[in-house]
């Protein structure tokens, strides 16, 4: 296909200056998400073959510099002990790859949620999954906020932030207006700001037999309340048929205890619930928010005051 040839040429051009005489092989597209494409390939040089991943904005998405910020965050997170992919090269704007891109070293592991939840070979990874999530999140939340100054969006008022997103759709859903009222009157005390991954859940975690191999998809990374990552990991939408409260795998108690043991702050279950209800309008429509409505309404109609 012509797209492959164009990408292959582009990769060759950007990798040449850093890797020298390089050949791009085994190029194929892994996924086409809402906002970007993921390509897998090997860069073959005289020294051997490097397994790599290239992600770039989808065609039509305006260059925003977000990819470049993501590369900086990946480097910072990796230095901070987070299992973030290792950045090999990144670029912004209309270069040989046409749009903002990041190239990282490819890591072996499973990202498909249903396989992570069910495959017998990942049994031991499932047993340690919740504690490992807690450790990764504690490490992310311990990153130095001042070192990402200007790179990341700050979410100081989570209710106002999501209300603005909701209102920008100009597509009224009265249940969300009720959710925002509930959130405003049941808000837990502020817990300070951290670097927040923003989309830490099954689907964005690479799991190998030995456990979590990589934390992927940092494009929603921001500075905000660290408890939002914990709530998102427990969201109904991301359990993929699994029975556990945390990613379909484990319990909230284990998550919160492991998080605190790994250096995270103490979080109580009621506060976690508030963050589960906090709406997330991923993808530009409220469709992915059914879990929020579901949790919010199921919380008890009598408690909405």
């Amino acid at each position, binding site marked *: *296909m012509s797209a492959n040839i164009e990408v292959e040429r582009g990769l060759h051009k950007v990798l040449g200056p850093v890797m020298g005489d390089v050949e791009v092989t085994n190029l*194929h*597209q*892994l*996924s086409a998400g809402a906002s970007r494409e993921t390509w897998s390939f090997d860069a073959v040089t005289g020294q051997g073959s490097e397994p790599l991943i290239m992600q770039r904005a989808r065609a039509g998405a305006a260059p925003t510099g977000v990819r470049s910020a993501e590369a900086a965050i990946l480097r910072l997170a990796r230095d901070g002990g987070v299992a973030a992919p290792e950045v090999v090269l990144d670029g912004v704007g209309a270069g040989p790859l046409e749009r903002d891109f990041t190239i990282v070293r490819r890591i072996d592991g499973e990202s498909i949620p249903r396989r992570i939840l069910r495959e017998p070979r990942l049994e031991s990874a499932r047993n340690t999954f919740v504690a490992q999530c807690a450790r990764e999140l504690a490490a992310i939340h311990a990153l130095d906020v001042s070192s990402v100054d200007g790179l990341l969006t700050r979410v100081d008022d989570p209710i106002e932030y999501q209300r603005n997103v909701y209102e920008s*759709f*100009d*597509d*009224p*859903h*009265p*249940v*969300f*207006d*009720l959710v*925002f*009222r509930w959130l405003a009157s049941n808000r837990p005390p502020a817990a300070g700001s951290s670097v927040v991954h923003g989309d830490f859940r099954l689907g964005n975690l690479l799991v190998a037999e030995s456990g979590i191999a990589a934390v992927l998809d940092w494009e929603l990374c921001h500075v905000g309340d660290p408890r939002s990552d914990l709530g998102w990991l427990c969201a*109904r939408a991301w359990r993929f048929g699994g029975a556990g409260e945390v990613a379909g795998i484990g319990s909230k108690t284990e998550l919160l205890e492991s998080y605190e043991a790994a250096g995270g702050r103490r979080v109580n279950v009621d506060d976690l619930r508030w963050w589960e209800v906090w709406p997330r309008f991923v993808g530009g*429509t*409220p*469709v992915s928010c*059914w*879990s929020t*409505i*579901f949790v919010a*309404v*199921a*919380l*008890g*109609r*009598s*408690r*909405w*005051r």
Partner: protein
Amino acid sequence: MSNVRRARTNWPHDAPPATDLIEAARDHLSAEAGSSDAGRARWMARVSANALTVALRELESKDTDARQHALRLGRLGVADDAELAEVVRSGGFDGRHRQLAHELWEVTLAKLRVANPGYRDEALEPHRDSVSKGNQT
């Protein structure tokens, strides 16, 4: 792909509307024809099948859902979702909380019946619990 900009709303359900879902499924299937990766092809086929299933449920119940939603709005004394959203936001229903929550619960179930019946079935259990607890207080 069409350049016609569609309205975001798909009242009384949510975006994307059935036409977009069917179009997406068609596009996925076209792409699958050009892909040699079996895993990716399987995934696309599954996404496509799911999209078509949702689209069909929506088409089957849309007229009934629209009528029932209009009745709900009438009971709440508002003309449309925009007015209801505005009144809820400004606290106009704080004194009629139970009625509002009941109607919005029914709205949610109707939407889930189309978008994700599994969530709906699951949601019905905690709902019964919360109602009985609510009645005791």
